[in-house]
């Protein structure tokens, strides 16, 4: 019964595999840092640091005059209106689109032969068809929309609804496909029509997840509306950019506070909906439904988008003009070399931003996680502070962060990467804190009961549970970051976004189409790598 000394070992290949993966990630991050110029030496723009200092100091005294507060309120309503209408439209699009893009819809049981192959092809093309609207950032849709439809608020709503609708459709399709198939199958066996079976059998289960996701989308829409504001749609983002350009830092902080309050409000509402149980849940749901409806009505009245522009004569004219100006896409001269270089630069920006956001997110996740009734004051206060700080980081639109960093660093991909990294830290920090809040505490408790110390229980029971979820969220945000590089590029930070900005300014539509195509391809590749990695983690 005595233990023999170890001649048994875990297959070395498995251990090498995980170390290899870790080493690979480190190599990629270092390559990306080199690419954005982090090791370049002279990166700081010293005079600019003084301006940033002044900006930070102004936080203590935001602009509180009545006229400005009224302006802020009006801008807040505008931003919220865009977000609400955009989310409502994208949820409807996502619901319909999701059903028709799900495997559930395309692969009916019992079909065979050419029908099955055609159905398979149909599903693939539906998924691919979603890549285009998803790959183009809301800001670009907004700029495109302004060209075609003119300066109507409808542009802002569509700019959010189209890409978010495509994303929601993809997510909802995945929710439908991962829901248990048995209920719908049973209905089909009993003779129900295909769509009816899905609606009765799978939809009710999936709807809970979809509602939860819709709230997350609302949060994202607030941020998107702010970004659209920066490029001209009005609202808090617009005022923020205006105040920034005239260096009115006190006004900026009033506007930032408004953004933080709105974000915090949506966050609170969404958490209320998700954590209420029992009879309280139905009350919360009813109130939320009424509030949502009220918001939609107010938003429609406040913004007054003119839907008829979609089919007006001027729109058709503009589309025709754009089509002619943009075709054929020009790939001549040295454009291809530039395109590849800038694509790599964009990729490196996204990797650096992802590294910053992930490292920061992991560092704060445990502090930011909400405890339960038993946590003492010593834990609660830092937790609340960190959560507030994360809220601030993600409430300020990335173009504004980028403009601040452009004060501090010379123009190029580095300030853009830092801006995106900081902004996404705010998002990832919160997502990771939620993972920590929701993890299963029983294994750790069981280990403590048999004599393990707290630290040991953490290392053996908590970390192995949360680490894969952390990695999964980080990869998901990386997919989003590659699109967000456009927005920071448009204000001058580098990558394909900066090229796009200069092409739009010079009415070089042929170049614009090529650049957009490159962005879509890049998004698709990152999407692919990220999905593969996430599947390997599961």
């Amino acid at each position: 019964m005595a233990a023999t000394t170890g001649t048994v070992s875990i297959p070395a290949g498995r251990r090498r595999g995980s170390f290899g993966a870790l080493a690979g990630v480190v190599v990629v991050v270092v390559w990306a840092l080199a690419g954005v110029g982090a090791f370049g030496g002279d990166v700081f723009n010293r005079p600019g640091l003084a301006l940033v200092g002044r900006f930070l100091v102004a936080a203590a005294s935001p602009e509180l005059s009545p006229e400005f507060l009224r302006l802020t309120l009006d801008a807040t309503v505008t931003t919220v209106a865009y977000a609400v209408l955009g989310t409502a439209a994208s949820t409807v699009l996502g619901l319909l689109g999701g059903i028709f893009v799900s495997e559930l819809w395309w692969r009916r049981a019992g079909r065979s032969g050419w029908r099955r192959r055609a159905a398979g092809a149909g599903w693939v093309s539906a998924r691919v068809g979603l890549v285009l609207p998803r790959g183009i950032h809301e800001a670009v849709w907004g700029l495109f929309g302004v060209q075609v439809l003119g300066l109507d608020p409808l542009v802002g709503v569509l700019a959010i609804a189209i890409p978010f609708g495509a994303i929601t459709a993809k997510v909802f399709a995945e929710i439908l496909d991962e829901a248990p198939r048995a209920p719908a199958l049973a209905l089909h066996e009993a003779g129900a029509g295909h769509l009816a079976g899905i609606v009765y059998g799978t939809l009710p289960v999936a709807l809970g997840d979809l509602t939860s996701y819709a709230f997350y989308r609302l949060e994202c829409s607030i941020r998107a509306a702010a970004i659209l504001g920066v490029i001209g749609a009005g609202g808090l983002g617009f005022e923020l950019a205006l105040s920034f350009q005239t260096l009115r830092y006190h006004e900026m902080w009033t506007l930032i506070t408004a953004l933080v309050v709105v974000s915090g409000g949506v966050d609170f509402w969404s958490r209320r909906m998700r954590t209420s149980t029992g009879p309280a849940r139905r009350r919360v749901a009813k109130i939320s439904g009424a509030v949502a409806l009220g918001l939609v009505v107010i938003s429609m009245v406040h913004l007054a988008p003119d839907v008829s522009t979609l089919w007006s004569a001027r729109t058709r004219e503009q589309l025709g003009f754009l089509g002619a100006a943009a075709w054929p896409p020009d790939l001549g001269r040295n454009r291809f070399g530039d395109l590849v270089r800038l694509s790599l630069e964009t990729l490196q920006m996204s990797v650096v931003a992802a590294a910053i956001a992930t490292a920061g997110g992991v560092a704060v996740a445990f502090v930011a996680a909400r405890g339960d009734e038993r946590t003492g004051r010593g834990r609660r206060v830092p937790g609340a502070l960190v959560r507030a700080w994360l809220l601030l980081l993600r409430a300020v639109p990335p173009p504004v962060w980028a403009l601040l960093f452009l004060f501090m660093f010379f123009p190029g991909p580095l300030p853009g990467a830092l801006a995106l990294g900081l902004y996404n830290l705010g998002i990832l920090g919160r997502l990771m804190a939620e993972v920590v809040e929701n993890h299963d505490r029983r294994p750790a408790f069981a280990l403590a009961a048999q004599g393990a110390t707290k630290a040991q229980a953490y290392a053996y029971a908590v970390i192995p549970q949360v680490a894969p979820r952390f990695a999964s969220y980080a990869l998901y945000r990386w997919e989003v970051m590659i699109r967000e590089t456009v927005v920071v590029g448009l204000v001058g930070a580098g990558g394909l976004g900066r090229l796009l900005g200069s092409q739009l300014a010079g009415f070089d539509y042929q170049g614009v189409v090529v650049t957009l195509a490159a962005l879509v391809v890049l998004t698709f590749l990152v999407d692919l790598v990220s999905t593969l990695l996430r599947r390997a983690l599961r």
Partner: protein
Amino acid sequence: MRPPAPPRAAPPTGASGRPGTAPVFSLRAVTVVLGTTKVLDRVELTVEAGERVAVIGPSGAGKTTLLSLLNSTRLPTEGEVRILGTDPAAVGTRDLRRLRGRVGTIHQQSHLVGPLRVVHNVNAGRLHRWTLARALLSLAWPRDLAEARHHLARVGLAGRLDERTDRLSGGEQQRVALARVLVQGPCAVVADEPVASLDPARAEEVMALLAGLVAEGGTTLVVSLHAFELALAHCDRVVGLRGGRVVFDLAPEEVTPQRAAALYQIDR
């Protein structure tokens, strides 16, 4: 008469001061109130070394609470609990950790760490003896592999060292939890409904394994069970719990079908 069990680690001392005579578990007039419910009501229980005690009773009788008193994860509202002669409420952190290391627990849901490989879950049984540094090192380069393999073989899972724990079936995970307890090498094992999630054949298998391993090492066993027949077959003492009170405390042969029925009867 049962011969006294060989002492494990440091021999416990009882009130009389003579080593080896103190009971493993001792509960005196223990009451536990959770919220407004009295879950256990003036329970008296003494378990000597080497006994195999089954705690049976209907749902809500307080079995889980009773067992949580025995592995020191819960303290009584009133009364006195002694584990291996020590009051868990009265000792410092280090001593409590050592005390906990001497009592192993098996749960209904096994409470293993799903994403970890079986070898790490099994080795986790040593955490009460390991320093943090050793524990972390073992996650990267698993230590004491031969012993882990040996105990896995004893529970019939030889060669499964390397798999992710959540890929195993429920019965297999329960056996990994058993192996972990073997690695821990405690004086006493507390098992809370260890086979409730298993089908009758697997349940019998796991109970036989548990009882056998415990008998081999002279370890004390307190197990709560739904299935009355398993209690009769594998234990030498049956405690009936109902409504937080001990209704009977007898040898298996003395538990008549009438007694058992009265225990599980639903009040109308």
